[in-house]
Structures are given as C-alpha cells and as structure tokens.
C-alpha cells in the first residue's frame, strides 16, 4: 500500500493530526501538505470548508468553537477516498 493509502486507512480510523504525524514519522507541515493534496484530489473533505452549509451563517460563527465555524479543522474520508482505499487494499 502506498503512503497515501496508509494515510487514508489511518484517517478512516479517526484521531488527531498530531497523532497521525507522530505515527508516520512526518513533520506536521508535511502532513498538512499531504492533507491539502488529498483534499484537492477529492479523497477527503474539510467539514468547516463547506460554504453555505452547516452553521456558518450563524452570527456567533466568528466566536464559536463548533467545527463548522472553521476554527477547529476536521476532515473526513469521501466516497472517492474510500474507493481509493479499497482499491489499494485489493491490490495489496
């Protein structure tokens, strides 16, 4: 399995970005770059980035700690990400 596949597999299990960086022996900046890539490739999506959805229209948004406010970043695997992971698992 490629590192991207391993990362997707680990993200599917949940946790924090710091844990992920430590487990893969990567600097957090490198991990963030890979996350950015996976976002652009459509394997992940950022919960707080969905404009017009969730509670982003709330007047308290700027002060809020709820993920939709954009302060705490959370990522989840997309259907495309799941398919890619499955493909890599089968290949292995």
């Amino acid at each position: 399995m490629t590192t991207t596949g391993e990362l997707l597999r680990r993200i599917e299990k949940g946790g924090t970005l710091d844990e992920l960086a430590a487990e893969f022996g990567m600097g957090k900046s490198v991990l963030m770059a890979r996350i950015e890539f996976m976002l652009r490739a459509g394997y992940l999506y950022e919960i707080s980035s969905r404009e017009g959805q969730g509670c982003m229209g709330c007047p308290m948004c700027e002060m809020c700690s709820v993920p939709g406010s954009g302060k705490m970043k959370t990522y989840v695997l997309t259907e495309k990400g799941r398919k890619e992971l499955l493909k890599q698992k089968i290949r292995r």
Partner: protein
Amino acid sequence: MPLSVDERWNLIEKISKQTVEFGARKHTLKDAIAELTVKPLTGIPVAIAVLYGIWSFFVDFAGTLFTDGFMVRLFDEHWLPFLQNAFHNNLDNWAYRLFIDAGHIENGVLVASDNCLEAFGVLTSGFFVPFGVVLWAVLAFYLMFALLEDVGYLPRLAVLVDTVLHKIGLHGYAIVPTFLSLGCNVPGVTATRALETRKQRFLMITLLSVFVPCGAQIGIMQDLVPELMGWIFLTLAIGYLGFGFILNKIVPGKSPEIIMDVPPYRMPMMKNIVSKLWVRTSRFLLVAVPFVLLGCLIVGLMYLTGAMDWLATVLGPFLMSWFGVPEETVSPLIAGFLRKDLAVGMLGGLMEQGIMTTFQVFTSVVLLCIYFPCLATFALMLKEENWKEFLGSIASLVAMVLVYGGLIHLVGIMLEVA
C-alpha cells in the same frame, strides 16, 4: 517515465529532508499541558477536575451567592408581600389568584403563599423563576463554557470522549452540542449541524432533547433538590449512553470517523468572553421569559377552569401505576411543554405540601427532564429535521420515556423505595 503521486511525495520528503534544516523544537509548558489534557491517563482526571470546578462555581455563584443570597430574599421578603398588601390578599378574586398568588389548601382552607415559588402567579413565580433562579444559573454556565471554548479545552475534551461516543454512533465533537445544551437545548440542537451525517444529527438531536437538561432546569433542580443532583445526573447519563447505543444499532446510516486538528491553548480574550456571554444570555432571556409567563398563565387558567383537575383524574391512574408518581404531577408535566424550569419549580410547591416521597420527587424530576423537549427546542427540531426524522425523533422520545420511566419505577419497587 512520469512519477506516480506517491513517488512524487516521497521525492518531496527526501528533498526536504536533505535541504531543509529543522531546529530542535523546544517542548514548552503549553505543549506539556496540551499533552496532559489529551492523554487518557492524565486527561480523564483533568476532565473530572474541570467539570467539578464548573459545578462548584455554578452552585456557589448561581445558587448560593445570587439565588439564595439575594434573589430569594428580594422576591419572598419584599416583592411578594408588596403585591399581596397592594391587592389586599384577595384570594377570592380570580385575577388576583392568576397574577399574584394562587394560594394553597391547608387543613381544608385556602391560605396565602409565603414564597414566590409556591405563589404561582404570573407576576410572582413568573418573574422569580427566570430572574431569581434561572438567569444566574445560565450566566454562570455560559461564563464557564466561554472560558473553556476560548482557552481551547473543548477540542481536547472531544478527543478524550471520542472512543466512548463512537459506541453510540457519534464522534468526539458531539461533546460540543451536548455541552452547549447544558446551557440551553436550542443552540445545542443548532450545533448538531456540524455533525457529519443525517444519522449522527438524528441521534444527537434525539438524545439532546431527551437526556440533556438545560441550565435553567439544572439551576432550579439544584435549588430544590440539591441532595438528589448526583442521582439525577447519573440516571440521565445512563439513559444518554444506553439509548444512544440502542438507537445506533437500529437507525440506518453511517457514522464515519473524523480526523481533527486540535488548536493550541491560548489566553482567553475578555472582549470575546463578554460578547459571547451577552449574546447567549440575552437570547436565552428573550426565549425563556415569555414562555415562563405564558406557562404560568395557562396553568393558572387550567386550575381556575377545573381543566387541570379533570386531566389529573384522567391521567392520574396511568401516572401512578406506570411511573409511580402522584396525579398532582400532571400540572408540572403540562407546564413542562412550555418551560421545564417552570415545571420543576412547580414540583417544589408539591414537595413543600408533603404530597411526594423522596423517590417520587426523584422520578418526577427525571420524568420532567426526559418526557418532552421544551416548546422552543421542539420548534427547532421541526426546522432542523425533515418530517421523517422528526416523526422518528418523537416516536423514539415516547418509547424512551415509557421504557425508561417504567424502568426507574421498577428499580424503585425492587429497592423498596417506590
């Protein structure tokens, strides 16, 4: 030959390792605290200490200092006697009984009340509940919540409870709507928008509206039955996790895992805290006060017209046999449709009249918490869920109340306290 995506990434990593020099990273005190609050071994005791601190502040600031220290005296020793004297204690007049003092029966005689909680008039209980008790409870809770939010502790709490919440189909961030609901269920339900799937939102909204009491309710419960608070919270927590587990098994849909970026700790900003406190508290008052006044008016009218007695006669046998609570509980249950804090306050009157045993008080308070969301939360559920989900929430709610309420009664019978 072109490189694959992973080969390119590996090359990037190799180049960056050879060309970029990373200085040794200093482990600061902030990092150490951050680690201590996330690792379960140290994080759980810290979480318990933080929650205990919040509770102590809540009880001392809202309960002891403001409610008992100032408000009870102001309302019971000045406001109620002032109104009673101004209107000549006229218990024969229906308007007086509706707006100032409904009175209560003692040895077969209708006598005047000596405190605002029992008086049950629109101008007495109607003002005492929101301004004398609830306002300070909500203020204390939102102050603590805003501090935790701004310091950056909430995401760490989310990481800590993630494993437990996954058992009920939610993830760690579900702690944010749960925590917010302890202030008021309305923003709690709104905060579920941040959850990932419809299944998670449905589970969270249903559990919030049943098992998470709002700050107003907690404040008045703490005022009336402080010795039972531990048992009440334990019962609600068991219900939250138990029914969450069952709902997760029967509700179709996905509960995907998420990966989160925990922000660093930071100093809270006074401006942020004050504006959060102002917005949340003022919104709460705008919603709460009209409903409390309306609740007092409706319940008062139902008493005056005899509708309450009729309902008590009709529903009394069921309430007594299934939940083990007296027929007098009907009136708080009806008031609870509008405001739960008002309903719990009405139980106080029944307790003082010696109508209920301690176990019946405990059962009634838990029943009031779980039997129906307040009107404002109910309206928001209608808005946030589609019809299918809304009907599902109501059906789950009815089933949970009947099963859990009956179960509590059964436990009481087995322990010979019911």
